């Protein structure tokens, strides 16, 4: 049986197709202003790429902020449950999932069966999310995809003390004008994101192994900074960004 998961985030739309416990394919596109259309587009592109008829997909679950705009989905579920299911599917040992996406971050605790037993989400603030990094990349005129690599060269991370994205941006600008090295500033930015996410996760009874998911998990600098905070290695799979969509496809199996 084939199932699909569609995850509509604030910035990107993701799709995954599964068949009997095997990932057939995944795809990422931009959400844009029309979440419903973005969901259809990324789904059609993926099925097209896999050479599948849309009708061959038995069950579809949508998730993410735009989950209720995906009209062709059979059910919508929150990204909390889907990220839990995705992480458990990829590695059943995982007990804590830290997800940092475009406009929110969250942490969740899983039991042995992959059920979410507790979770936290960030409050109404962009600090500690992908949006924060985007704003900083713009201020530094650096491609966000290069952030991770550049920050690893830092020997002396700068200190960004402001929690507020807007204030942190002006802090970064004053660091630039003071001639602080780019890698140190970027490493400082990663530290700042990590400290926010870590503080939030501390509200839960965090247990290893920890997996990080979401678009920001592709940034090795943030992952390293988080490892330092948690004092434990953090697992990142090649599917980090599409983990929510995979989880949705996993949960879709139980709809039959």
């Amino acid at each position, binding site marked *: 049986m084939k199932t699909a998961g569609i995850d509509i985030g604030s910035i990107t739309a993701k799709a995954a197709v599964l068949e009997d416990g095997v990932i057939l394919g995944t795809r990422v596109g931009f959400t844009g202003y029309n979440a419903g259309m973005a969901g259809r587009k990324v789904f059609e592109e993926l099925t097209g790429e896999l050479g599948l008829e849309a009708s061959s997909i038995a069950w579809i679950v949508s998730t993410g*902020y735009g989950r209720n705009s995906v009209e062709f989905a059979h059910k919508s*579920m*929150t*990204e*909390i*449950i889907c990220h839990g299911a995705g992480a458990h599917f990829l590695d059943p040992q995982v007990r804590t999932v830290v997800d940092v996406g475009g406009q*929110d971050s969250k942490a969740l605790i899983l039991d042995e069966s992959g*059920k*979410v*037993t*507790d*979770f*936290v*989400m960030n*409050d*109404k603030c962009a600090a500690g999310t992908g949006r924060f990094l985007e704003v900083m990349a713009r201020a530094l005129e650096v491609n966000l995809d290069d952030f991770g690599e550049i920050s690893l060269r830092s020997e002396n991370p700068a200190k960004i003390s402001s929690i507020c994205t807007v204030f942190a941006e002006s802090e970064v600008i004053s660091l630039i004008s003071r001639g602080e090295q780019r890698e140190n500033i970027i490493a400082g930015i990663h530290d700042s994101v990590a400290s926010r996410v870590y503080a939030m996760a501390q*509200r839960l009874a965090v247990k290893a192994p920890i997996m990080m998911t979401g678009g920001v998990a592709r940034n090795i600098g943030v992952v390293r900074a988080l490892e330092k905070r948690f004092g434990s290695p953090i697992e990142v799979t090649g599917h980090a960004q599409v983990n929510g969509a995979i989880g949705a496809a996993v949960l879709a199996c139980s709809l039959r």
Partner: protein
Amino acid sequence: MPQTGAEKKRKFRSAKRMREIMTEYYIEAKTADQTGKKVAWITSGGPVEPLIAMDVIPVYPENYGAMIGASHMGSDLCAKAEALGYSTDLCSYARADIACALEDGGPIGGLPKPDMLVCCNNICGTVMKWYEIQARLFDVPLFIFDTPFCHVDFAGEARRYVRTQIDEYIGFLEGVCGKKFDIDRSREVGRLSLKGQRLWQEVLDAAAHRPSPMTAFDAFFFLALIVTLRGTTKVVDFYTELLEEMKERVSQGISAVENERYRLLWDNLPVWYRLKWLSDTFAAHGACLVADTYTTAWCGSMKYIDENNFIDSMAEAYTRIYLNIGVDEMAKTIFEMIDKYEVDGLVMHSNRSCKPYSFGQYDIMRMVQEKKGIPCMMLESHMVDERSFSESQALTRIDAFMEVISQRGPRAGIAR
């Protein structure tokens, strides 16, 4: 859309009577200058019984704040107060009330002008400054009833200190009203107050029944009377009727939420401008918020009241209210409620406006998870200022919380 029979049944017939009483009350207060009665503004947790005994009409800026929130006027009024220089971090009841007083605006054309102010700091420290501002503005006398924080017990010094203030309070009222305090009348008022509180507790207790005949959202509505008019026969009569209605609903099996599957406990003030949305969102998951710590606060300290000695015992009862006790004590109250109402989860509203209520919530949450093992969620919001509410974020949180609860299934060991 026409109402279905079931929806009609779910409506409370007492709601109409309640609205009538509140309307009469506000008309009486707003025409006090014509009838020669005095008006006192008083904090929600303040000792109102002496006012009733002196025939003074109590008016509650906080009740008015709730009205402002529910009528979606909060953000505007808060912004006006900010323009006057008040911080966005200041309690939104205070901000809205200050803005209304200066502008003669707000619902029902503003509150009637006070002849005096009575401020009891058993709920927070904000009210002290807030009432000082209003005392300057209206140029009326202010009585501050100071209740020391009560971490665990109410010891000798504190007891004497608060008791002395009751005499000062009575002296203050005699001065402003120009008449003697009638001790017999005050005994009667005390008796009625306690009776009202007992009835209110019984009304809330009805929610322990499965399915629950009422939700916390109903309690938020029916609360207004025990806050504003306790100590009067009106309150006793009304809650007697309401209790009757609860019993009828229980015996007829009327549930507040259709197909109640999950029962939840709410902590903190309501989100006044989102009552319906929240109630519908939870109900869509078959979840009924059966009880809350907020409405319980108006009967939570009646165990300290001595029916035959109201004036003396009121010192303790007013000091040991929910917002004036330590976090461990608060947690204890929550544990008891979890057991009594057999809830499947705890919903905490982290209310940016009310610091004393929101402080300690994460600790309490941890204690609840450890001791009671039920899922908890935190909803960051604001009771009156809509600018701090994000619907999609709130929805995701509630949906995820309900998914976690439904994965566990309804409370074990309970047949349904």
